[in-house]
């Protein structure tokens, strides 16, 4: 365990306006699609309109003859060169996965799969050419319904012989962290309460605003690949493994990247195909997807059936929780598709002290776009389930849903606490966050109003929803990842280069795409090295500049990535000490760091790191053995996760005559430990809550009976606008993490994890007196109205 160091923090905690903004506000941006190279060719993909079928013929003659078309490539042209796309996580020893070619060979497994590509001199000519490619298919029955698919009623990949990719289980009784869940359920059936529910985590689409784009340049001795990705380091490694181009010949750059939310945590068919097109033509090639292609073929998220059994005694003390999941993988396994449910497996018990816990999951293939990481990745699903169940338990016991939580949660004096799922929570104070949230919300007053309106038979009913969430952040300790079947580690790397003019270059292995690392890392380094915020330059997202790194996802950048930055900064100071001693004519043992200078102990005489960097550059008079650089590299691998938590409260007004839901008030109090930049943190919370609210009320990726994506444009996939969302009233408590030097926990996913159950609990709370205990997400007016009608109407 690391003890948080007390250091002067002028910059850390300050609401610094972002460095990134200057270029983004003025249009001086470097999106991948902005990159144009001499002689560059453009790619249009031909995609299968068929969800499941066999390709019987592809006619490319007309396309090849079209103006501007340079090449038309099918799988037959690519041959073995296209290899197969990787899945990086084996959740069970016998995990099954179909071969995943970047371009379909003869079998198509979802609508949107690439079957050919047209390379032309302009983007318009490429698209015109793609229209002329004629593909014939033999239709196969599409495997679409998750439950039917789990039972192998229709096969998504007939060659595989089953739709089940993997089944895995975890039981507290096997790990010494709790009792036998079946015994707890049996006891509760006899003498207590058993709550059984099935919840649907609908399919969501990350819908980052910048469509994915790739430019691959084969000219020169080294490939340069620009790609709109969260994970340039992953792309470099997997591109080498898949295409056979030596890793040392690949430079991958993630320039300005317009959002990701997990949706750009992928190694994509389009990346491979763009490289293969460039290889084939010998020219730089660009591919930029349309929004429709993005919605159809970039990976989706969520999509689970959750079967839940909660056991409690008659007072509402939970004695056991059994979770049985079906998780829709879609047509293929992406990088971490198989492990998304696993990332939630240790979170269903959330902030509570349960006596026993069992988790089981079956990963299932269907003929839909494949699923993978989407903001929260497994943890929103888990949090939704348990927070909904706690409300159901409260209703059964007949107490306020807040009271049932208080009966079961870990109290602040019980930390550190080993949970029934085997995780060690270092710190937390659920009482403090909840008290603050209740006060800001006016909880008791709203309960009073709710009762008044219910008694009066108001057609617009008030509902109050609670979500007292926690999450595991900072993905992830390398040893833990190894123990769970992941192929890579979870450490992070940083370099700090002290320039002789006093400027500082910070190179981070994380790869931001909106999170503000350039600003936050500058604040951290400014404090750590006693330099001006303005003098720090943060470099990232280019494997030639940031040679090592594991990129940005899973709320890891601050709690893992910035710890490497801190470690590198501390190394710089240590490394500069012999030079400082020499310049100050003192013994190294007498040199100490003042916060801005290396000084001779007990004196004001010192040298700044900039001065030392300049002296080292000259090296006119340095002792033997001193390195001619005070730059330093460092890595950081966490011992454990960090555990942000908080209390979100939502009040909704449900019009029982129309089914319309309006959020009247939304309060969040998050505890993310120490805050580096409150402006950035607030922004992360706002955006996170918005995405969780969107799952509760608006968004769903819908396929029709033929396996066609119905929500294939922003006309039908309802990303909320400003007019659809309220103002969120957000605040914080601060219980520092004890597992890293800054006491930080991570904030990227918190809002999304917390908010969905808060909203749905509020909706159900508004209509529970009508006999309703669940409404499937998204809770559209139609669904809410139908639920009310089915329950016998508004009164």
């Amino acid at each position, binding site marked *: 365990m690391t003890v948080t160091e007390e250091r002067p923090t002028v910059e850390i905690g300050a609401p610094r306006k972002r460095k990134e903004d200057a270029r983004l506000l003025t*249009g001086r941006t470097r999106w991948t*699609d902005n990159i144009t190279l001499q002689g560059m060719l453009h790619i249009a993909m031909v995609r299968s309109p068929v969800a499941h079928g066999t390709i019987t013929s592809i006619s490319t003659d007309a396309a090849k003859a079209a103006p501007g078309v340079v090449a038309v490539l099918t799988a037959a042209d690519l041959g073995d060169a296209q290899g197969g796309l990787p899945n990086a996580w084996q959740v069970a020893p016998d995990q099954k996965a179909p071969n995943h070619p970047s371009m379909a060979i003869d079998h198509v497994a979802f609508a949107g799969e690439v079957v050919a590509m047209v390379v032309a001199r302009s983007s318009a000519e490429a698209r015109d050419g793609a229209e002329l490619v004629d593909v014939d298919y033999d239709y196969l029955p599409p495997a679409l319904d998750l439950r039917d698919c789990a039972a192998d009623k229709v096969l998504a990949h007939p060659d595989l012989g089953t739709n089940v990719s993997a089944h895995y289980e975890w039981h507290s009784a096997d790990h010494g962290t709790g009792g036998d869940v079946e015994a707890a359920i049996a006891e509760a059936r006899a003498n207590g309460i058993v709550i059984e529910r099935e919840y649907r985590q609908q399919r969501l689409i990350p*819908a980052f605003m*910048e469509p994915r784009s790739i430019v691959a340049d084969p000219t020169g001795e080294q490939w340069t690949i620009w790609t709109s990705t969260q994970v340039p380091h992953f792309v470099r490694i997997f591109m080498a493994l898949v295409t056979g181009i030596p890793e040392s010949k690949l430079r991958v750059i993630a320039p300005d990247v317009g959002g990701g939310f997990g949706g750009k945590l992928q190694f994509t068919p389009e990346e491979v195909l763009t490289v293969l097109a460039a290889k084939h033509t010998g020219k730089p090639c660009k591919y930029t997807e349309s*929004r429709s292609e993005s919605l159809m073929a970039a990976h989706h998220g969520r999509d689970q059936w959750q079967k839940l059994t909660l056991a409690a005694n008659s007072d509402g003390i939970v004695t056991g929780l059994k979770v049985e999941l079906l998780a829709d993988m879609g047509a293929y396994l992406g990088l971490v598709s198989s492990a998304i449910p696993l990332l939630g497996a240790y979170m269903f018990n959330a902030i509570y002290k349960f006596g026993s816990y069992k988790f089981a999951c079956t990963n299932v293939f269907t003929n839909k776009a494949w699923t993978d990481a989407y903001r929260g990745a497994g943890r929103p699903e888990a949090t939704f389930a348990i927070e909904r169940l706690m409300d159901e338990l409260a209703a059964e016991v007949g107490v306020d849903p807040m009271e049932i939580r208080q009966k079961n949660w870990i109290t602040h004096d019980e930390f550190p606490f080993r949970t029934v799922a085997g995780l060690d929570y270092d710190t937390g104070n659920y009482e403090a966050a909840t008290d603050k949230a209740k006060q800001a919300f006016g909880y008791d007053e709203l309960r009073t109003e709710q009762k008044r309106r219910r008694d009066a038979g108001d057609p617009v009913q008030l509902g109050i929803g609670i979500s007292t969430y926690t999450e595991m952040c900072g993905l992830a300790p390398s040893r833990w990842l190894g123990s769970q079947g992941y192929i890579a580690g979870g450490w992070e790397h940083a370099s700090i280069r002290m320039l002789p003019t006093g400027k500082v270059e910070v190179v981070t292995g994380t790869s931001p795409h*909106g999170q503000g690392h350039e600003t936050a890392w500058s604040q951290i380094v400014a404090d750590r090295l006693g330099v001006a915020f303005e003098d720090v330059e943060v470099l990232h997202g280019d494997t030639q500049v940031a040679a090592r790194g594991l990129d940005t996802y899973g709320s890891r950048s601050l709690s893992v990535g910035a710890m490497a930055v801190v470690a590198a900064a501390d190394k710089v100071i240590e490394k500069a000490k012999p030079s400082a001693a020499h310049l100050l004519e003192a013994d190294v043992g007498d040199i100490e760091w003042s916060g801005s200078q290396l000084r001779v102990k007990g004196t004001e005489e010192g040298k700044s790191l900039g001065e030392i960097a300049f002296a080292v550059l000259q090296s006119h008079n340095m002792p033997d053995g001193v390195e001619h650089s005070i730059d330093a590299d460092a890595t950081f691998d966490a011992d454990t996760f960090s555990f942000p938590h908080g209390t979100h409260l939502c009040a909704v007004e449900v019009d029982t005559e129309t089914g319309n839901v309006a959020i009247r008030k939304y309060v969040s109090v998050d505890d993310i430990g120490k805050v580096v930049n409150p402006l950035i943190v607030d922004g992360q919370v706002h955006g996170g809550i*918005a995405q969780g609210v969107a799952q509760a009320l608006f968004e769903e990726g819908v396929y029709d009976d033929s396996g066609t994506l119905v929500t294939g*444009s922003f006309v039908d996939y309802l990303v909320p606008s*400003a007019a659809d969302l309220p103002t969120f009233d957000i605040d914080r408590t601060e219980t520092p993490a004890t597992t890293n030097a800054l006491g930080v926990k991570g904030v990227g996913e918190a809002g999304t994890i917390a908010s969905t159950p808060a909203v749905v609990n509020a909706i159900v709370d508004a209509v529970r007196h009508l006999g309703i205990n669940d409404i499937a997400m998204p809770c559209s007016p139609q669904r809410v109205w139908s639920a009310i009608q089915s329950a016998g109407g508004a009164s």
Partner: protein
Amino acid sequence: MARINVTVDGVGYSDDVEPRTLLVQYLRDTVGKTGTVVGCDTSNCGACTVHLDGRSVKSCSVLAVQADGHEVTTIEGLADGDTLHPMQQAYHDNHALQCGYCTPGMIMQSIDLLNDNPSPSEQEVRDGLEGNLCRCTGYQNIVKAVLAAAQGGAS
């Protein structure tokens, strides 16, 4: 090909374009105004919003030939040297952008909104930005920025 004469950010251009060329394609590919971006293909997201003769339009929904003889202002034409337009400054001051992809369109629409209604309520701001999607911010700081710009007299 059709010949068009368009003023973009104060500079006159005369170009031959295919009649089907969208204004956004002309701005990006011919004039090099890559600050203006494309976010969808159904005119839902508003990322490509520019001003045509001072009024906001989604440049994916206008043909380049329709801009013939007209004046276009993009995000790149707003600042006066190093001095940001008050709306750009308000976005910066209020952390109204994260990834920044929607920002050019959002700012152009925000300016148009205040041109129509210099003192909007919060709800009027939300309604006025309904045609521009942002995935990062939850809109909270965007709304705050527009209200702040209105207070400061920006339009």
